[in-house]
């Protein structure tokens, strides 16, 4: 049995009431794939092909119109928040609004624990210190505010927030997009290290095919709301089948050969 199984997931935006008929616009799915423990799956594809939407559906930020998501064989329900929140966590792309400016890092990390665990105040702060250490921050960062941290440290805080509930799956939507190459490599290595230590499974969305190739076991290519190709990363990069994947990978290879 696989850790996370996406089964015929569909999403269609609701037609606004003033639009009586006509084109329904973008449609996602049906999408099916499964994720094993400790595995990394990357999702690549051109802009607005439904990558981020799929991530939102998996973590429960959006409700699918049809299909199921199974975690260890159990259906994830939108109304059972604790189960979903503590097992499937999301890391947003780095942005100016990723962290609340008026809460200290400690208060920020306290929130998921307060909502999803029965720990005492003391247990919660111990857990926070442990998680800060895990992502390579210091215990003192507990008292820091967002504007005192660099971009790389902020992204580590976002990661700490995802890790603090000991999840089984982490969904990351372009977690490295706004980071400079050195911080990016640091974060990539941090993720790989954490994966090895904790046995996490990653679903990882990126435009950076170099990182995708470096990090992921399998790669999914999406095009126009559909999965057009899914294969082991090495196989896919050497021998893409679908025209969309060929385009992406040839563009990447062309850039590489220029260097």
């Amino acid at each position: 049995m696989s850790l996370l199984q996406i089964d015929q997931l569909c999403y269609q935006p609701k037609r606004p009431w003033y639009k009586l008929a006509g084109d329904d616009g973008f449609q996602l799915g049906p999408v099916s794939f499964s994720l094993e423990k400790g595995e990394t799956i990357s999702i690549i594809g051109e802009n607005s092909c439904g990558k981020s939407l799929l991530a939102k559906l998996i973590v429960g930020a959006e409700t699918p119109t049809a299909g199921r998501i199974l975690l260890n064989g159990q259906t994830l329900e939108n109304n059972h928040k604790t189960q979903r929140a503590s097992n499937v966590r999301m890391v947003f792309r780095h942005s100016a609004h990723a962290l609340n400016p008026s809460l200290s890092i400690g208060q920020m990390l306290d929130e998921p624990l307060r909502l999803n665990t029965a720990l005492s105040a003391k247990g919660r702060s111990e857990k926070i210190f442990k998680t800060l250490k895990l992502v390579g921050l210091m215990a003192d960062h507990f008292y820091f505010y967002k504007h005192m941290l660099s971009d790389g440290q902020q992204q580590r805080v976002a990661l700490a927030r995802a890790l603090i509930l000991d999840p089984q799956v982490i969904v990351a939507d372009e977690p490295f997009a706004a980071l400079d190459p050195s911080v990016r490599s640091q974060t990539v290595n941090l993720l790989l290290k954490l994966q090895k230590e904790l046995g996490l499974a990653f679903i990882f969305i990126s435009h950076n095919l170099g990182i995708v190739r470096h990090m992921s076991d399998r790669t999914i290519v999406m095009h126009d709301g559909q999965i057009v190709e899914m294969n082991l990363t090495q196989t896919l990069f050497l021998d893409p089948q679908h025209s969309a994947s060929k385009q992406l990978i040839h563009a990447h290879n062309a850039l590489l050969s220029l260097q």
Partner: protein
Amino acid sequence: MPDVNLYDDEFHPSPWQSTWREFKQSHIALVGLTTLSFFVVLAILGPILTPYAPDLQNTTALLLPPAWHDNGSVLHLLGTDVLGRDMLSRIIYGIQVTFGGAVGAVLFALIIGTAFGVIAGMTSGVRSSILNHVLDTFMVIPSLLIAIIIVAILGVGLSNAVLAIGLALIPRFVHATRNFIKEEFNKDYIKTARLDGASSVQIYFKNILPNMIDVIIVQGTLAISVAILDIAALGFLNLGAQTLLPELGVMISEGLATAYIAPWNILLPGLSIFLMVISINVVGDGLRSALRNRMSQ
């Protein structure tokens, strides 16, 4: 606390502390704050500080000029008015009435307006639109005009004027709060909190309110200066406080009759209104830039 704290001496200012540090950088804002606190102290300690009762008539000293004038007397530091009432006492009481009334009106508007704004911001669709856009149309009309209309319905008097100005100030608080909450709800950190399983009410109190206090404070200070001007204007037009009350606007309109022989009767109340309004605006401005700059280091 962590077991080993390497940077025990290091200071981690909270957002409020960094706002104050940023506010202190501006000398003008500090002067404004000092002036404002002076007026606040005067308003609170008024009855203790005044040498005379505000309506005590000294018939032996009518229209006495201020003490620094050749004909002035130290007994009446700022002179007397046409009925022989001490100007200093009347101005201190006037500050109490005008400033206190303005603060009351703003507090009233702030509580109701923010509550409506929060409801409008947290809901969506028709309910939100009604609350917001209907009240937005009132923002086209100057608050003084709305206050005059409300006074025309409720009748004249200081308490009615304060109520009217409070009601007239509500839309700006609704507008500011609603826009802020709408904007805030689209940010990523709210999405993360939602994914943690927080309900909208929890998100509001834990994540949005700490950020919203800035908006409320800035709007509040600006509203107090508007309210002071409006209360004085209603008093001047004889629609607010009535003749017996020592209100600054009323005092100006009373002094108008003897403006040529006793200009201090309109000058001094006018000066105190001016100083109050300008100090509040300077403090509001300083606060706004301090709040904007505190996060950039």
